[in-house]
């Protein structure tokens, strides 16, 4: 298999992010897929972005303005 490289942006592993670990993903050009060297995560850029959005699930008030302090 070819050498893994950094992708276009430093995408992080969404599975590791969910457990609050920042792991940069490596990119396999031949397979056109990103993979994590810590956990078994493998996915495409599109799916990484989708999972990143899903990972925001716990920020229930993170995207609204709060005025009462």
């Amino acid at each position, binding site marked *: 298999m070819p050498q893994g490289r950094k992708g*276009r942006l*430093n995408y*992080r592993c969404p599975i590791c992010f969910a457990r609050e670990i920042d792991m940069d993903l490596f990119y396999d050009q031949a397979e056109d897929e990103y993979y994590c060297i810590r956990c078994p995560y493998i996915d495409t850029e599109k799916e990484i972005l989708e999972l990143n959005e899903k*990972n*925001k699930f716990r*920020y229930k*008030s993170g*995207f609204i303005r*709060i005025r009462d*302090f």
Partner: protein
Amino acid sequence: MDKFILNIIHRPELVPEYIEKTAASGKTEDVSRQEVISESLDIFKLQQKIAHDCGFKTTIQMTYSSLLDEQAVNLVKHDSEKYGDEIGMTFIGLTCKDFRERFKTKEIAIWLFSMEDKKKITDFMFSRFKQAFGFYPRSIGAYYLDAELVSYIKHKYPEVHCAVATCWEEGPKAYRNANNSWYTFLDGGPFNPWIPSKSNIHCPAVDESDDIGIVAIPHLSRDLLAVFDGPGSFFGTHPQNIMRGLVYKGEKIPYLYNLIDQYKSLKQYNKGYSYNMIFVGPGWMSKSGRWEAPYELLVKNYENCMAYYADLKKKNEIEDKTMSEFALWFREHKPYKEPCCALWKDILFGSEKQLFWYVDPYFRVAIDMNQGGAIVDLRPYAAKLERPVGVGTKHIQDASYPYIIQSFYRAGFFTHYAGEGAIKSCTIEYNGEEVDLCTCRTQAHFKEKNGLRILSLNDVEIEFKDLTIKVASQFELCEGSGEIIITRKITEISDPGASLIINEYLTGCYGTTEYPEDLTGVVLSGTSRGNKKKKEIKYAYKCREQVIADVDTVQAVIPQIASKLTLFPVDTTAEGYFREGYAFSPMFTIGLKKSCKYKEEYRSCLRVEKED
């Protein structure tokens, strides 16, 4: 007073950390190449422009490599003359080719060097700074500056009077977040500026004789709830934090504005004063993007952040100062023993959780309303522990100030099947049933009166099998005393004749990480009120317990961290007890039990002291 003060700090890193890392490993071409320097300087210039366009002056902290670069020096001189920016110096961004060759090392963190090397590096940088600018810096910084180094700097360069000195709660959580590779073990400090003790940078000075000579500010203003249980680098007043934590939708960053607003609101707990800081380098705004975000979005976020501060400034709701201006103001307005408080509420997870933070020269404490007002963090500043760090010292990387309670590291109320966790709470007992207030979520209100910071909790309802009660709790934190007085009162009851047992307890240990330390040598004791008879347990993991019927005090002395905790009833009688743990439950408990009826108050006091 009505003051919200902002420090904006930029640093021109000519070799950003993210590029330097691979260069130091010999894996890429020469990072001193002109395009890297130009890009880094361009980003710094852009950050400066964004701040200046919004009408702000900045503090520019020169890095090692920028001190050696004529272009950077001239640029900074220009901005200082034109915009009134302060020129300071930082130990962040040490490494570059010159540094590696001159000091024969790839080390990046100033506090991790031996004291001898810290002095050499400091003297070299101060000398280069003076060559470049003709004076010594008035403000300095790093992710962490140990008291020993700050004392050296202050002695040799008395002009310095402000420093970025710690990162709030960057400890094991930050280490883990960085795949166990980021050695900033700096937990346990104040969350807002303070004057540090000569003994330990985390501890506020108690008086002039203890004053290290600078005003310290924490690196970034962080979310006091999210960061207590999450990575510091996700939730702070740095647009990169927000990007890294994925707390944004497109270009919208309401969480950052909420964070700034909540810091602004801390005026209500601190005699009308509040503080915010933002400290950025060029690396996070890289043209190749960062944290999944493209360059354009990174720039937009910084523009939005500064525009928000600018809006506040237009409304006279914020005042920008340079670091040394702020230090002068702080010394004029803040007495040594005045505490720093925050009744912080969740602005991220959609809960109604509140954490109350209190910092003074005697302790740092966090009271969790989500657990009925349990103390979930306690750092004995009264001990003023001298804990040098760096190569050649006992602790090397571990610069955290030890806790006696850190409930998220050491279990707290909830443990798996066995043992106890570190927490200060209270149980109510009736007819063989027992309910811990940790299970009773509530909300708190703050007021200040006669040197007391008073936290009053809403009543919580407790249902026993055949009795229902409501309990009120109040915490009085006495400025300059190292004491917390806790009052419990049964405010409603289904059977007015019923009698209950209120058990104030503290389960503690000591440490700086999630892992247990050896408690051998801890001494638990209690003294009776009448004949002053004393009982004692020397900790040996034997699961022993002692009871004192009419107690004067119960105590835990922890020689490993030179600390003493004392619990005693206030204006009343109580039964005292103390208990050692066992290897699967490496904790100790001290407690007071008191029989109480409807409308009776039960007051007790927790005192934190140094044990010589």
